[in-house]
């Protein structure tokens, strides 16, 4: 088990292109399950590969348990990695795949066998030990890849999108296995994914990356409730947060955000640093909006339904608001009888609204931090 510290970690392949990862500062605590989350090309895998020692570090320092390991080869970092493609050696049996790393360390044969046997039992692979990878299913292959990491008993486990090649059902069960594994081993784990469900369910903390930089680090629900900027707000959540360009105006009771003919009252403190007329982005989570079908309802917003997606337990309704380009997504109850073309009202809770500065940073999060501080 170990503490992994990234200090200004940067990877630049050539001068002509932006850095793949830039100025990444992150500390992963001993025994923590850290998830690096972000869209394709955000630098999360590059960061993971730098930690693994598979990519050289352009600048910054990487430390494991306080020891700088920038120039330590991958084989001497005592790190195990599980790959997206499983990366099992096709010419070796399951047993040999798992024992391959231990043999390099010239461990006594009896101990190798013991470790491989223990890992196989944990992962339910005991009956498959003599099979070659091509004779295994996707889920079994991924378990062998996990086993190969476990037998090493490394300081740090790295996972590079390990579930993305599995079908939906298998993904759920393997996710639970990885969570159980972390509980059992209490090891430091760093997990890369673009799947926010994996991030939310597995991570002790999540680190959201965008364009090579860290956008926000925090506990999953903290990040969900209080996104640091519009990128995080739009990325985390399914469906994502509605982001509506608006203008701050003074109102008799405090402050209002206007967008087209619509207006939403927000707590004055959230827009306090801004002058009236400033451009901001209003963020509304779909679950904080509710449809109001009755024309006499005192709903805040009114618009026309453009799509209806019944999902069983809930129905996603996209509503076009006047003079707003993107429709607003409303999470309605499953039994809602809303049809395309209906004119409906949208009720909202102003206290759940997020306000983002023109540069994208959350004023809501800043306000909360100021209050806590």
């Amino acid at each position, binding site marked *: 088990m170990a503490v992994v510290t990234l200090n200004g970690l940067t990877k630049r392949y050539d001068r002509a292109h932006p850095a793949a990862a830039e100025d990444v500062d992150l500390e992963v605590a001993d025994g923590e399950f850290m998830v690096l989350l972000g869209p394709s090309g955000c630098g999360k895998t590059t960061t993971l*590969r730098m930690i*693994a*020692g*598979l990519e050289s570090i352009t600048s910054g320092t990487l430390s494991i348990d306080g020891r700088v390991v920038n120039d330590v*080869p*991958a*084989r*001497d970092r005592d*790190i*195990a*990695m599980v*790959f*997206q*493609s499983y*990366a*099992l*050696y*096709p*010419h070796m049996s399951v047993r040999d795949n798992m024992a*391959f*790393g231990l043999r*390099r*360390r010239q461990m006594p044969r009896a101990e190798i066998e013991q470790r491989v046997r223990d890992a196989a039992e944990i992962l339910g692979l005991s009956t498959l030990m003599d099979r070659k990878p091509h004779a295994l299913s996707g889920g079994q292959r991924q378990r062998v890849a996990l086993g*190969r990491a476990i037998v*090493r008993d490394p300081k740090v486990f790295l996972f590079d999108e390990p579930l993305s090649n599995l079908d939906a059902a298998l993904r759920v069960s393997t996710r639970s296995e990885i969570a159980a594994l972390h509980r059992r081993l209490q090891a430091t784990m760093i997990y890369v994914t673009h799947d926010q469900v994996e991030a939310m369910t597995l991570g002790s903390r999540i680190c959201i990356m965008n364009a090579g930089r860290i956008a926000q680090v925090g506990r999953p629900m903290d990040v969900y409730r209080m996104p640091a900027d519009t990128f995080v707000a739009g990325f985390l959540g399914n469906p994502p947060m509605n982001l509506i360009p608006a203008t701050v105006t003074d109102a008799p009771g405090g402050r209002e955000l206007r967008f087209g003919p619509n207006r939403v009252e927000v707590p004055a403190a959230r827009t306090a640093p801004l002058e009236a007329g400033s451009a901001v982005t209003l963020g509304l989570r779909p679950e904080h909006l509710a449809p109001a079908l009755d024309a006499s309802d005192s709903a805040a917003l009114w618009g026309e339904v453009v799509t209806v997606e019944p999902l069983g337990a809930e129905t996603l309704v996209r509503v076009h608001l006047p003079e707003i380009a993107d429709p607003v997504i409303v999470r309605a109850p499953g039994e809602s009888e809303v049809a395309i073309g209906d004119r409906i009202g949208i009720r909202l809770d102003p206290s759940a609204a997020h306000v983002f500065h023109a540069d994208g940073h959350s004023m809501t999060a800043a306000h909360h931090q100021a209050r806590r501080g």
Partner: protein
Amino acid sequence: MRVATQSIVMAILCAYTMFAAGPFVWAAMLSLRTTSEIHLDHFALPDPMHWDKYPDAWFNSNYSIYFMNSLQVVVGAVILVTLIGAMAAHCLARYRFRLNRIIYFVLFSTIIFPPQVTIISLFQILVGYGLYNSKLGLMLVYVAIQLPLTVYILESFFARIPADLFDAARMDGYSDWAIFWRVALPVAMPAVTTTVILNFILLWNEFLFAVVLITDEANRTLPLGIQRFIGDTQEDIGMIATGLMIAIIPVIVVYAFFSEKLIQGMTAGAVK
């Protein structure tokens, strides 16, 4: 309808088999007949069968020496070209370095030169290094002429091995050298086998370089030995056929032993 289709396919296959195997069967029949019998009737069945021609060729016509020479030169060259070719192909496919593609292009472009263009200069180089008329010299020339094709076949195969496999081996603690031997080479075995068979067959039958670079009786390879039966005024067709059959046997053995791997290597990646 299905029977008709199958019959047509069978007829075509039979016709092709006769076309392909006919000369071989003919040579096999000739190998059991004497030259005077052959002159009487080119296509007659061997009656009686002169099996004694084989030990005669082997012991009295130096075929045992030619055979062992061929075996030494060709097996040595195939081992060397496979090792050097595999290492070069792995390096060109796996590592990013300056001039990677240029080295690959220069290496592969040598394939366009016909052997007649290089043979005089090769002759002079071998004389200069004291390797003329030696099995080692011929072996090195064979390595050089087969290297481009070997690297070409293996490079495309090595390039298809997922990079994650090498990364996994690095994480497992292995050096680049160990990864080549313990991961890359075993995974690429179908392609390696393909090159082994191709090189073996091509070099076993190689005549042009051998006839220019070897004149010593003790160092002659099989194709040169067979040539000895072709004189200025007459040729011993019967013994040539016997020699041919002796020469063909190792090729058949190698092919029978590795043919499955050869097909795997040639079709690797074609189907999932």
